[in-house]
């Protein structure tokens, strides 16, 4: 078993990790085969990034540094995509 890949990114969304950002985050996480977890601090608690119920329960406020860790074949790509999503403030993909 390989060690998980990790990444972190600052959440600057005005109202924090509320419904709309959480929907986008879990939808994106589900596109990857890897097991993906998210935490509001480097030492956890780690929770399943593919579950909207659990992601919403974190209630991460604005200016939280979100930590991700992923295990699996596409772990690198998954983390890059998730970090990008948070960096772009959960923007819509269309123009």
């Amino acid at each position: 078993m390989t060690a998980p890949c990790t990444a972190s990114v600052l959440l600057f969304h005005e109202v924090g990790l509320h419904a709309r950002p959480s929907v986008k985050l879990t939808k994106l996480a589900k596109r990857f085969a890897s097991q993906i977890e998210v935490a509001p601090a480097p030492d956890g608690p780690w929770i399943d990034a593919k579950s909207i119920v659990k992601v919403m329960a974190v209630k991460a406020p604005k200016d939280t540094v979100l930590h991700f860790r992923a295990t699996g074949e596409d772990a690198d790509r998954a983390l890059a995509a998730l970090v990008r999503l948070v960096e772009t403030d959960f923007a819509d993909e269309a123009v």
Partner: protein
Amino acid sequence: MRPAARSPDKVVHVGRPASPGLVLGPVIIDQARTGPRRVAGDPATERAALEAALDEAMTALGELIAAHTGEAADMLEFQLALATDETLSEPAFAAIAAGAAADVAWTDAVDALIADYQTAEEEYFRARAADLADLRDRVLARLRGDAEVSAVLPEAAILVADDITPSRFLSTDWTGRGIALAAGSATSHVAMLARARGVPMAIGLGPVDTTDGDLALLDGEAGRLVVRPDPGERAAFADARGALERRRVAVAAAARRPALTASGERVQVMINVADPAELDGIDPAICDGIGLARTELMFHAGAGLPDEAAQLAAYRRLLAWAAGRPVVVRTLDAGGDKPIPGYTVDNEPNSFLGMRGVRLSLRHPEVFRVQLRALLRAATDGDIRIMVPMVAIPGEMQRVRGLLAEAAAALGREQIPHRVPPLGMMVEVPAAALALEHFDTDFVSIGSNDLIQYVMAASRDAPGLGDLTDPTAPAVLKLIAMTVATAEARAIPISLCGDAGGDPAVVPALLAAGLRCLSVAPSAVGAVKQAIVGWEPAR
């Protein structure tokens, strides 16, 4: 002696406002809409029933999402995400395996989560409990064999309920009707939907003393419901509603007419747009074109900076809507209070005085070039004009013009159709206003928000400085008048596209300063035109 039967007295319920507007009409008490409990079958049957109900709910949500946009779509997406989350359904399936009926197991599982949300500290999370209840009832209705709710309310009806779900809201025609809630939250999805669609709504009224058909008055602005109003109250209410309606009709009518001052001078009113999608509900006939199209939103879109094709498509959409009217596109105005990760400078101290607007564009010519190419190409489609933000010294305009010429030459070599449109600048830095005659510009638009904060040395987002960030401060008006005079002396078109132009109270001062073209938020067009019509300079 009078007969025993008499009409009960009026009762006033005071709650909180959630969406403004007035309604006078019969009360309809919202009926509970779930049918009788299930008779539990064996665990396999119950499991299959819940799976089927969840599937149906997901399909229905998917169809609803396709039919809605904005707030409603976000809310439905959230419900769909919940419905697909095993963390939510797993406890229900476990209870079914232990012998529970599907409806009871599902209700218990969702109610546990609802209880969690209801105890949250933030009102935002408490308000999400209503979304969960909505999903719960949506699945429950299928498990208990209920038909979809499609209530048709009587004209001018006031729906009275503890709280209502977004599904209930979306399945009802609210035209001319209102909502009075015993509980509810101003940050619930229903409240947001009600405001977006102009449905009067009051919340937090407490238990409402009424029966179906009682006449009531709902005031969404005061957050008040009067059941069985007396004649005096009804008369006052009718007056208030009449005045509101006359004001609404007058504003809508004013929006459709050209704005002429008392001396018959025509003032152009254009609109500010941040997202081409905003234009869908706006009639181009209400304005003289788009005076400011912001492009920042595009640069927040998903995968990296938008490419030439994506930008070209967006600019063409603006031009198609404008149908020949001018469209002023502002080049990327990032920095200051508008950061773009990976493009703007992180944690810049004093960012309003830092690397922003045209300064950033000139620092990232590779990004700027893509935008200029897209604008040059879009120019073959209509009257597009390029406007540069945050210009402070003439050299900046010279460099932009140089880059524009280079981009045009490159397109020429590639044999891609293009046209070089007018190139203008925003005047929002006092240095530009004071020395406008030195700038090489085809037109000018005053960005009042920034100009005010730089003139007054008062940040527009600093709390407590409202008195200073005033568009009618003498120094601000003097600078605006000066800028207008310089532009007129050079025969350069000039407009103003900041928030000041959208404030009817400020419009007379702007006209007095010499402005004859304002670009404002689409929702402000009617009120601004009203402020212009019949205006005459003070003698």
